[in-house]
């Protein structure tokens, strides 16, 4: 395994892209940074700009406005950039599938590397998802 991927998995900087969520997933994501879970132990940090990001954390169902913004965000992120869909909405649109305001799912817009289901997912579930993502990235090469 080469150094680049190892360093990437040891320091994932996360950009939080909220595509019109109901905010429950966002609150649970912020729980990960609190003393109880503290993902900074593993080098995971929230960053403000998508140019610094390694992981795009998508929550919610994209609507007509956020669809374009999500595409732009992904094209602005420096490669290699992973995408994680958090919550049932981002994973499969759930009850908003037939909504007038829901043109497509997240994985039809950007290539998603990991899905973390739940409404909202527990912080433990998110940590498990991130662990699986890291194993996937390391196993690929």
């Amino acid at each position: 395994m080469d150094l680049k991927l190892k360093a990437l998995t040891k320091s994932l900087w996360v950009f939080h892209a909220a595509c019109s969520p109901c905010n429950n997933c966002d609150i649970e994501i912020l729980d990960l940074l609190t003393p109880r879970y503290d993902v900074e132990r593993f080098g995971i940090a929230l960053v403000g700009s998508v140019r610094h990001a390694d992981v795009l954390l998508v929550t919610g169902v994209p609507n007509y406005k956020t669809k374009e913004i999500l595409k732009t965000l992904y094209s602005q992120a420096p490669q290699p950039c992973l995408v994680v869909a958090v919550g049932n909405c981002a994973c499969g649109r759930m009850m908003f599938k037939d909504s007038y305001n829901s043109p497509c799912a997240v994985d039809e817009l950007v290539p998603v590397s990991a899905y973390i289901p739940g409404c909202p997912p527990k912080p433990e579930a998110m940590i498990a998802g991130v662990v699986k993502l890291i194993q996937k990235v390391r196993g690929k090469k």
Partner: protein
Amino acid sequence: MRTLFNYLIFPGFLFSACVGLIACWIDRKVTARIQWRVGPPWYQNFVDIVKLLGKETIVPAGAKITFLLSPVLGLLSTILVATILGVTVRLPLESFIGDLIVVLYLLIIPAISIIIGAFSSRNPLASIGASREMKLVLGYELPFILAITVIIIKSAGSIQIGSILNHQINFGSNLASFSGMLAFLVAIICMQAKLGFAPFDMSESEQEIMGGVFIEYSGLPLAIFKLTKAILLYTMPLLLIILFWAKNLTILASIGKYIAILVIIILIKNTNPRLRIDQAIRFFWGPVTSLAIIAIALALFGL
């Protein structure tokens, strides 16, 4: 050959980068402990730098060549300061006349490089950050230079770091007098602003303007900026130790003093909210400059 070795390896780039990155780790760890968290492992900042080197570097459309040149400019001048200070600590007699002035000029260049880089990225938020940084530089430079004037007065008008060191070794630390103490207080507040830590981190406020001056940087240039900040975190406390607290500079004593100043910085950083830019300027040009002027007056009376 020896100059090159000094610049690249021992007191220069490699050494100061390692010390600076470990100091950044101490910063993150102490911050985490204050917030009742565990914090990252000691090699975290090294991993961050390696990771950033492996990422894609994006140059925004319409950016000038200065976008990529300015981080290098900042890093080179910071290493030069680290080298001058490191060589002076080891061999005080080898310093040249006027190196204090050179160091003061070189310490402004990282801020200028950040401003140039942010403006050339053509991002509106970066422009806001750069204009804040510019005002902040105008704010803190005046009291900082006044505080250093106190040192020059106290060491009989010498502008040579080596002779300031020798003066303190012969006549006791500058910190042990009233004027020295006031000037040290002023210098610590200015150092906080120079390092871009809270309460003076309005130029790169993450929550408000999303990284501000660094918003368009990715990959290698961002890594260089992180390294510059890390080396500054090593250089600035070292400069303060040399100027104010240099009675006893054995290796153990220097490390102890360095860590003491580092912990002061981190505690100030963690217990203060971010100021607005106008509040910061008013703070620097009002109370801090007054304190510095009082310190100069005391120094002129020989206190």
